[in-house]
């Protein structure tokens, strides 16, 4: 496997979706290519960072206000 093939298959690799042979080739390549090893670890960092910090959040007060408003509207709908 070459670097560009590994990068193209990186999402499948991370999802554990590669077939056994391709996965073995990917692991073999990663063991010997510091460039791809860096790409992999940076990608994992980016994924972790998105999960931890990527959200746009509502305030607590908006949360309460919107739930009450939804329930009011549903009350009107069902009456």
């Amino acid at each position, binding site marked *: 496997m070459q670097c560009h093939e590994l990068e193209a298959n990186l999402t499948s690799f991370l999802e554990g979706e590669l077939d056994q042979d391709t996965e073995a080739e990917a692991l073999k390549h990663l063991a010997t290519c510091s460039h791809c090893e860096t790409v992999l670890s940076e990608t994992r960092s980016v994924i972790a960072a998105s*999960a931890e910090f*990527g959200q746009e*959040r509502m305030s607590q007060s908006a949360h309460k206000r919107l739930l009450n408003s*939804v*329930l009011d509207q549903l009350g009107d709908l069902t009456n």
Partner: protein
Amino acid sequence: MPELDRSDSRFDLIVELFRNHADAVYNVAYRIVWNRSDAEDVVQATFIQVFLKVDQLRDWSRARGWLLQIAYRQALSILRRRKEEPTDPADLAAYITAEQRTSEDAVSNQILRGELADTIRDAINALPQSLRMAIVLRDVEGLTLAEVADVLDIGPSATKMRVTRGRQQLRADLVGKI
């Protein structure tokens, strides 16, 4: 009497779904409509729809994907109705910045989460919309690739490509910063 019981349980269901998923709905909506007021409208409209369609939700474990699909469509329909707003990603970048500077939520986020969080959020927001949604759904909200494909109504290989390219762009943008 049976009808009353049924409607009561649907209310309980909505409250539970709202508690578990309203933040995710807001997160997806905000990334499309780019202002708090419209994103809040999407949250409300989504849970009204959820109430009306809740019988269609057979598999509880798929609630998040199902809800976010409704939210995504609601957000797009708001965007279509609001044609005067910028839709080009380059214009949007300036628009987002202006919006975030004035947003109380952004201020409290900044205090709570600091510069690193802002850096990451800005990098996600700077992605083109197709890549941004794939990243928000897969990496921020943790949907499976199959669920992301359902929400965006695209095929599995297109989904995988968007996630791959989104992560590549984030990596290029964030390397050395995280």
